[in-house]
């Protein structure tokens, strides 16, 4: 048993894959898990206790839509009783004000409301459901409850130009944080990538806009920005490094080092019904696989940045270079970088379709929408 492994800081609890939305960039895998395979309340409660014993500080309740779990209040109470800080990442759809009040009373610490854009039309295009008006109602209810609020805007080519409206929405709410997170290209987003990637011009404008917003709102609202890493010079330290900070539990109890880990061939995952969390974290093959540096190839192997970004994302290396041990191809030092540049050149030569003609049916991309599992 390796006792030198630092403990995880957060557990991402994918409580369910069921969701009333069908977002074209959903981070869930293409193969969604069904309701009948979901962990029970008791299973999750044990996972929270084991996580806290392992040194985990925070539980991120996500999905799918976590509010589709009828036992959501019990799950919040169980995580709080274990000593965890509870984040809820939600579309706000299966919610009314009395249920919101119950969530806060059960001990919810942080309410993260996800937005598809600043207006109903774009939201409906992305998630194939009417949802925006409900989110605006939730924002009003949140003003009356003592809970941390973050607005999560998922950014891409089709809504990048609504950034000022999104920021105004955050400023008119009780949010202490707002995230503008560009889509990361895995799962459904990878399939729909060519319709989602922003142009270089959009990226430059948004960086400039959000830098000013950060300065103006310092001490009032924390403005976070996640760039699309295809445009970055160096890769992101994905998940804070493989098996270094985070652990994701899928609805059926499989423990994964990240959302997309299932795309990597040859990896098998332990299930929390059969193994303790500590054993999975410290000793399972999947968590060990890319944890140290022995798997690295050049240029990572001798790179000064390998302790900063850990070679970038393993899943992206597989998706773009067909080799999970390669340097993340978004890295400017990667021999595979020309592949990413070719993708970007395709986007930037075609133009963004920022100002579509009034007949949206002519320009609306042929989205592949995520279904709702049974």
């Amino acid at each position, binding site marked *: 048993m390796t006792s030198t492994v630092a403990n995880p800081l957060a557990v991402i609890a994918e409580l369910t894959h069921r969701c009333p939305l069908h977002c074209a960039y959903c981070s869930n895998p293409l193969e969604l898990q069904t309701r009948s395979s979901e962990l029970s309340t008791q299973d999750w409660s044990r996972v929270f206790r084991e996580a806290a014993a392992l040194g985990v500080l925070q539980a991120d309740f996500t999905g799918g839509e976590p509010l589709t779990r009828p036992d959501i209040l019990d799950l919040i109470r169980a995580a709080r009783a274990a*000593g965890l800080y509870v984040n809820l990442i939600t579309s706000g759809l299966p919610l009314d004000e009395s249920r919101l009040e119950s969530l806060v009373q059960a001990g919810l*610490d942080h309410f993260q409301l996800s937005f598809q854009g600043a207006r109903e039309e774009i939201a409906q295009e992305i998630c194939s459901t009417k949802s925006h008006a409900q989110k605006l109602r939730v924002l009003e209810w949140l003003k009356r409850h*003592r809970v*941390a609020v973050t607005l999560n805007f998922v950014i891409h080519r089709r809504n990048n130009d609504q950034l000022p409206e999104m920021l105004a929405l955050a400023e008119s709410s009780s949010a202490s944080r707002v995230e503008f997170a560009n889509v990361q290209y895995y799962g459904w987003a990878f399939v729909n990538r060519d319709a989602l990637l922003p142009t270089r011009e959009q990226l430059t404008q948004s960086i400039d806009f959000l830098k000013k917003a950060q300065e103006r709102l*310092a*001490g009032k609202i924390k403005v976070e920005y996640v760039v699309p890493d295809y445009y970055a010079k160096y890769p992101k330290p994905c998940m804070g490094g493989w098996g270094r900070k985070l652990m994701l539990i899928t609805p059926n109890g499989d423990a994964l080092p990240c959302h997309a880990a299932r795309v990597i061939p040859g990896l098998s995952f332990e299930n929390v019904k059969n193994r303790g969390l500590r054993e999975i974290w410290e000793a399972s093959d999947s968590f060990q696989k890319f944890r140290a540096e022995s798997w690295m190839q050049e240029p990572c192997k001798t790179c000064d940045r390998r302790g900063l970004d850990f070679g970038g994302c393993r899943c992206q290396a597989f998706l773009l270079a067909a080799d999970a041990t390669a340097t993340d191809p978004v890295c400017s030092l990667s021999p595979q970088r020309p592949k990413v540049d070719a993708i970007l050149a395709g986007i930037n030569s075609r133009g963004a379709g920022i100002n579509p003609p009034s007949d949206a049916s002519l320009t609306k991309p042929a989205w592949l929408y995520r279904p709702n599992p049974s």
Partner: protein
Amino acid sequence: MSIDFESRPRLAPGCRMNEKTQQPRTLLMPERALRLNGPSLEIVERCDGKHTVMQIITELQHLYAKAELAKVEQDILGYLALLQKERALDFEL
């Protein structure tokens, strides 16, 4: 961002200490956690909406009587500014 000495800092919604039984004592907040010990713990425990900034300074100057008064004040203001930047504090008047 300037800090009013008469304002009463209070942990913002969704920002709280872990339980007294949990070690190390940690300030939990959205997407972040800060380990607290010594002076940082003494400061955060007084961010209760009752102590003014001035009172926190005075109490810590007593507590750390060997330290230079101005240095204690400067450190406290620096730490409160850091927490404010993290949106971990509301300042009530």
